């Protein structure tokens, strides 16, 4: 197959298209002289060529100099804050139609199908709000620490930004990422199946340093409550062990600039490895306590329904998971030949140590290359070579983390957790490739 109409820079990619029916008939009848007179590209390509060639005098994109080569360009600072090329306009955050009915309590998914490396551009970081977002005035924003501390305290942004800071790269994934797919395939592309995942460099202050200042009672106060300044004043319980490890940050920076308003400007909690709902945005208060709080998002939502009718409460860790982002659902391969299968792997329990890729639906696997950096509780990019022979294929990736945990299949996950959990679906994703080159979302046990 060849989706030749989609390909760039090949005037006529294959001889069967190059020759008319009449000309092909001439060849079959033995009029070989016809071929000798034909273009080089035609005679070279009776089989799949090692490298395709241009036919005719050449590619008009080369032969006819384009406007950008023959005219004056725009001045500096034409866009004081730079924006992506207009040709990239399709790669934006999108809602999944019908998933929610109110924009203020909804999700916009990151277009993973078009991203490279491990960092999510800040403007494409996924959004999940519980009662809309605000652009909070940083000069009026305060962080309060109270509860089991010697001194209840208040910090301004000036205070927090004067403290020693750290910058760390971590993934953030919503606990409900891939939640629509627990029972069956429901969405067409990786944007909607896995797009509640982003990875950024966050800058801020370890919460431990701030709790130390306030004289936290680490002996009795084994839990903290984080609370937002938005209308919902979202709350979540986080274990003190994570705070004590120094991992939990009170962050104001993201990818070199301040947090975006949709991501909690000017202050959010960073809780590496834990689902996004605990990374409280517009963070206004931390309370130290001796028991968990049973907040709305710990007692009504973000609870995982098991087959026995019990809900798992306080499930927080995002277990090891991976997905191939290209080629992926809703995409079309242009032709047979070489492809770079590329994807993302991450684990809430540490570093990804290995990713295996299968192109036959999980019968045989081979190790992918992990691209650097490979960081704890961050997205790791993997790549593997693939020469597509034009036959049907099923692409899968399977990640392993430093605890030895191997990403499970749908069959294994459902055997334990059923299909109604909504949350924490980290099953192996399958993309089916058919002869036309079309890639679609399927599930394999």
């Amino acid at each position, binding site marked *: 197959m060849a989706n030749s109409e989609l390909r760039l820079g090949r005037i006529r990619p294959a001889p069967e298209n190059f020759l008319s029916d009449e000309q092909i008939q001439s060849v079959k009848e033995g009029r070989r002289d016809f071929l000798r007179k034909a273009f080089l590209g035609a005679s070279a390509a009776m089989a799949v060529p090692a490298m395709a060639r241009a036919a005719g005098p050449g590619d008009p994109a080369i032969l006819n100099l384009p406007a950008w080569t023959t005219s004056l360009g725009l001045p500096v600072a034409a866009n004081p804050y730079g924006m992506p090329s207009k040709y990239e306009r399709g790669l934006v955050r999108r809602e999944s139609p019908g998933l929610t009915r109110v924009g203020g309590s909804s999700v916009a998914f990151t277009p993973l199908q078009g991203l490279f490396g491990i960092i999510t551009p800040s403007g494409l970081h996924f959004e999940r709000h519980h009662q809309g977002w605000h652009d909070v005035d940083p000069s009026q924003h305060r962080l309060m620490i109270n509860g089991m501390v010697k001194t209840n305290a208040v910090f301004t942004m000036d*205070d927090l930004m*004067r403290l020693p800071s750290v910058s760390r790269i971590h993934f953030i994934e919503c606990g409900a990422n891939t939640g629509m797919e627990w029972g069956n395939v429901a969405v067409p592309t990786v944007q909607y199946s896995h797009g509640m995942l982003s990875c950024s460099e966050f800058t801020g202050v370890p919460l431990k340093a701030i709790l130390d200042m306030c004289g936290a009672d680490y002996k009795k106060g084994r839990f903290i409550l984080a609370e937002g300044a938005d209308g919902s004043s979202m*709350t979540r319980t986080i274990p003190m062990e994570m705070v004590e490890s120094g991992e939990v940050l009170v962050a104001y920076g993201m990818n070199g600039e301040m947090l975006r308003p949709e991501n909690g400007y000017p202050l959010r909690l960073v809780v590496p490895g834990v689902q996004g709902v605990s990374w409280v945005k517009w963070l206004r208060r931390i309370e130290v306590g001796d028991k968990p709080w049973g907040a709305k998002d710990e007692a009504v939502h973000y609870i995982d329904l098991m087959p026995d009718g019990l809900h798992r409460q306080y499930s927080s860790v995002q277990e090891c998971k991976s997905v191939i982002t290209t080629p992926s659902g809703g995409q079309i391969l242009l032709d047979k030949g070489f492809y770079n299968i590329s994807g993302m792997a991450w684990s809430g329990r540490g570093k990804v140590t290995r990713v295996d890729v299968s192109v036959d639906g999980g019968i*045989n696997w081979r190790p992918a290359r992990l691209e650097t950096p490979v960081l704890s509780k961050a997205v790791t990019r993997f790549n593997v070579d693939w020469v597509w022979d034009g036959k049907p294929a099923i692409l899968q990736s399977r990640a392993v983390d430093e605890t030895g*945990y191997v990403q499970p299949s749908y069959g294994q996950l459902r055997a334990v957790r059923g299909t109604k959990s909504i949350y924490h679906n980290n099953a192996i994703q399958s993309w089916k490739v058919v002869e036309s080159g079309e890639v679609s979302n399927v599930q394999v046990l």
Partner: protein
Amino acid sequence: MSRFSKTLMALFVGGATMAALAPAMAFDRYQGIGRPATASEVKAWDIDVRPDFVGLPKGRGTVDQGVELWETHCASCHGAFGESNEVFTPIVGGTTQDDIKTGRVKALVTGDAPQRSTLMKVPTVSTLFDYIQRAMPWTAPKSLKPDEVYAILAYILNLADVVPADFELSDENIREVQERMPNRNGMTTDHGMWPGAGAAKGGIGNGGKPDVKNVACMKDCKKEVQIVSALPDYAQDAHGNLAEQNRPVGQTRGKQTGTPAEQKGDAAPSAAAATLALANEKGCMACHGVSNKIVGPGYNEILAKYKGQTDAEAKLIAKVKAGGQGVWGAVPMPPQGHVKDEEIKQLVQWILEGAKAQ
């Protein structure tokens, strides 16, 4: 107090009051950073209520009082009986008297209920109090007084027969109500996904042991590949044109699906576009689509109904201002006091001209 720097002291207005409050903040290392919170400040923000009712304010409210508050503040999103599935998932439904006795919602075990309501899931009545107090009503969070929260909560609990119709809920009897919560025994923390200490060490869960195990087999791992699910036909076009959601260069293209989006012009926003923006800003679009019903009717449905009526504009302006119920269904439209008269007029005229985007 002697440990505070002079700079910090200078920040205190009414320093004497502050001094009385605040002993030992460890400022030695980070001098001049942060300050003690006043008791009033902590009171203003520390509104959380825990399952053991730490943080619960004193107060009381009856089911009857709750009915009235519900109709004013809650019914437009949640339906008159908390059963509505139109804006949010239902609050009430799917629980039985037997569940109240056992503390386990049977429909969760049998899978009988098509949708899980809040009362089917929530184990702790404190959670409901906490969330109503901190986040409700939707467009005016934290505007309810404690007595009002008690009353609204009493009404919700009465809808599921957790409390009788003549009940007054208060800080004194809420512990007894907890013992009637239909799913109070429906939670488990016996799992490996709590990132802190396990239950054996005073925390939650099993200490991080995963429940699902796979092995990294590399060769001949299974005999055949069984595809158990694929994207259903009806869902093929549900997410718009995938060709437009992919890059125009690279190793793949997006598949053409759905109806390609209309080419958008670069012209300056028209009066219609400005009114559409106003409708978005004022929250109208949360409940009304241009052509489709969301909670209330679509604008074009309204136009079809009122077309040709000479007093249509006046009628609709009155409806937007005062609210209404029954014309389009049971879910009432609340009065839109936050929208100015001239803006209401602009919006109504726009609706009667077809609610155009440009």
